[in-house]
């Protein structure tokens, strides 16, 4: 493993990581790919799905493959913020009493925030600073977190009992929201085979933290043409109901559209996807490929939208259909 990463090496590492994860996770290729993209773009991921679909296993496996300091926080209704960030404890040393900071589980490279929506919003918000600034402030002292730092949170659908919707500010800090869907019959058959035998699949570490940082730096260097960037800007603007570019259903059902973080996620996600596709520039298809994961949690519905049962993915698809790639038609000949 080296810090000097080329596009080919980037692609090779990414493929190996996916292969290793694939030893444990059956199917869910799109989920794995989006999680990979988010990690390589230094983004946090919110995985949503009903219990038992392998969300936790996926993140745990990633921790093993990436040789990163892994920490798991099981969110429960009685979980306190200090249980995440850490706390000042009174230490008696040589007759001297003093407070000493005891880091919480957030001080790791890869944080698994399992069932994040089972904790109260106050506790959920304890992750805000860590996710945005990669640091934690306790008792007026800011403690930086070690890079790379990822939060991979899982949540059950909010309609389920005993869940608390994530605050909008925190949701927006997730780079991607990935929906984990139920496996197909064949995939389920394979899952049952793998998980009920005597030997559980073993995974190997592929890269370390430094390599991951180098890969992230390489991804950020990928160029993007101005008209592709313009397309992304128009997509984001079109997600706002009062925009002239907004499709009719967005105007009708959306209360708030995507924030600029949504645009950043589209660009960075597009850059990583381009490298994963063996390209060194962002294409429209990269943007369109990551758009559902980057935008679905950033569209806040109004009452009508909720009442009509509109799904975010429907509106993202409509956005992609409605907003032309070229702002002005390119003459064909």
């Amino acid at each position: 493993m080296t810090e000097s990463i080329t596009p080919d090496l980037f692609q090779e590492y990414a493929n190996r990581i996916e292969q290793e994860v694939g030893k444990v996770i059956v199917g869910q290729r799109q989920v794995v790919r989006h999680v990979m993209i988010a990690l390589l773009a230094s983004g946090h991921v919110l995985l949503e799905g009903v219990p038992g679909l392998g969300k936790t296993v996926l993140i745990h496996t990633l921790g093993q493959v990436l040789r990163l300091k892994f920490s798991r926080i099981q969110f429960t209704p009685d979980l306190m913020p200090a249980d995440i960030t850490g706390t000042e404890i009174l230490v008696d040393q040589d007759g001297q009493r003093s407070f000493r900071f005891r880091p919480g589980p957030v001080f790791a490279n890869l944080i698994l925030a399992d069932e994040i929506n089972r904790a109260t919003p106050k506790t959920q918000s304890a992750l805000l600073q860590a996710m945005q600034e990669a640091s934690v402030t306790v008792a007026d002292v800011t403690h930086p977190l070690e890079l790379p730092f990822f939060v991979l949170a899982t949540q059950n659908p909010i309609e389920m009992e005993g869940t608390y919707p994530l605050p909008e500010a925190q949701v927006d800090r997730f780079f991607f929201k990935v929906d984990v869907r139920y496996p197909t019959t064949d995939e389920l058959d394979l899952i049952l085979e793998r998980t009920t035998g005597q030997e559980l699949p073993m995974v190997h570490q592929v890269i370390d933290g430094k390599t991951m940082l180098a890969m992230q730096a390489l991804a950020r260097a990928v160029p993007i043409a101005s008209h592709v960037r313009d397309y992304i800007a128009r997509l984001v603007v079109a997600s706002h109901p009062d925009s002239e570019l907004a499709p009719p259903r967005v105007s009708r059902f959306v209360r708030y559209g995507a924030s600029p973080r949504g645009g950043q996620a589209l660009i960075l996600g597009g850059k990583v996807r381009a490298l994963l596709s063996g390209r060194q520039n962002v294409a429209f298809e990269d943007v369109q490929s990551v758009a559902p994961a980057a935008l679905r949690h950033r569209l806040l519905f109004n009452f009508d939208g909720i009442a009509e049962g509109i799904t975010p993915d429907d509106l993202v698809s409509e956005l992609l259909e409605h907003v032309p790639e070229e702002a002005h038609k390119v003459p064909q000949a």
Partner: protein
Amino acid sequence: MNRADLTAGYARLEHLHRRWRRWLSFTRAARWGMRGAAGALGLGLAASLIGIQRQLLLPESYLRLQAFLFTIGASVAALLGLLWPRSLHQSARLFDRRFGLRERISTAVELAAAGWPGAGQMALWQLNDTLQVCQQVNFPAGQRLRVSARDLALAALMILVALAPLKYGREAFDAAVRQAAFKRSVAAETARIEALRQQIAGTERLEPERRSDLLQPLQNLETQLDRANSVEQALAELAGGENELRSLADGSQIEAGARFREAGERLAQGPDQGLAELGRQLQRGDFLAAAEALDQMELRTATREEALAQAGELETAAETVESANPQLAESLRSAASALRQGDPARAEASLAEGARSLAEAGQQILQAELAAQAANEVAAAQERLLQSSQDSLQSAAGSGQGQGDRQVGQGQAIGADGGGSGQAEGQAAGGAGQGDFQSQAASSDEAGRQPISQDNPPGDGGELPYQPVQPPTLLGADGSQLVTLPGSGDPGELILGAASQPIGAGDTQVPFLQVFHQYEAYARRAINNLRPPTYFEALVRDYFSSLAP
């Protein structure tokens, strides 16, 4: 080093890109050319419709115009397409899209345009990746000279639309053909009249005032013919000109000229040299030379016998020219009397007086003869113009066969025109109400062919007497019966709706019902095709309405 690699790599990409752009220009030229041709055809059709509507455009001219516009439109648009500038970035985006290059070229071009900010390794990787993918592009397959189905359909549609007037505007084109033929005929007749005018202008034997009297009607006729817009108008102008010329062609003078020639023939055979010379000049019709010969005649006064002999010859000559010019005869007798009385001076004076009289008569005769000649030419011009009009109608009817009843009926009508006197007589009957020209009334046939003067309608007519009108032979007439026309014949009288006196029962050989509808159809077609004055249309319609069984 990195920047040098970038520059070299981008030069290769630019070379490839330039080649593609060139082909793109050709593709655009083909596409624009197709659209330009369609647009030009559309514009040409719109402009041509005005010409077709006004019956000014001939089918050949229309086709030539459309072909010209098609070529010009296609050429200009194709040239514009070839030369129209397109930005490098725009074409890069186009190629990205067309060849599925996933924004590779446009990104590379943009980076190069920005000067490879930072000149990072990533820019070089991106450039190399772009080059590699571009070289794998199957350019000829992806960039065939394609013209969209929409453009092709548009061009085909415009061609069909442009050809449509040839089918659906046949009547207008036929009218334009007839109008063009009319213009050609008028131009030819104008040229003939101009030649005649030049001939008269070059006749120095005629005094300038008399020449001017002849030239003026011809000059006016040329001017009026130039302004004529229809056969009827031209014929009316010709008839008017002919009429004016005939008024100058005094019949008595022409007759006098003929008598002078007869007299000259006899005088030329006489014994006296002077009188023989006079006779020869008279025989040739050169009255000025004859007058000069008379004026310079040598008197033989050497002996009494010679004088008496010459006096006798002069008296014989006086008898010879008596019928042609009594004044000249009187002068010759006076000269003979003077010779008998031995007064040669008075004899010379009498001969000089006779010469002046002969010269004056000669001028009148020459003017009358030239006027008659010109009038005959103008009459012939009318015949030719009418014939030309009928020919063009016939050809139009022939070309229109199968197009509908109207054209077929017209062809039959023209056939009847050429065949029999019935048609001519029918025209005479129609034209009689308008008044006609006395000089053209030699026969019913001629009267029928004489056009109706457009400047002599009933409103200001009556200057010339009505011509006798006979019923057509098809109805059993034998040329001796006359039709009594309605009205009193007073100038300005309108006879709309009044039917002529019907032929008595038993006088016809063809049942009325058998021919009525045919005649009515002829008349209606004539109204449609010849476009007579409105009041005349009403007259014809009312006539047949009054006869309708």
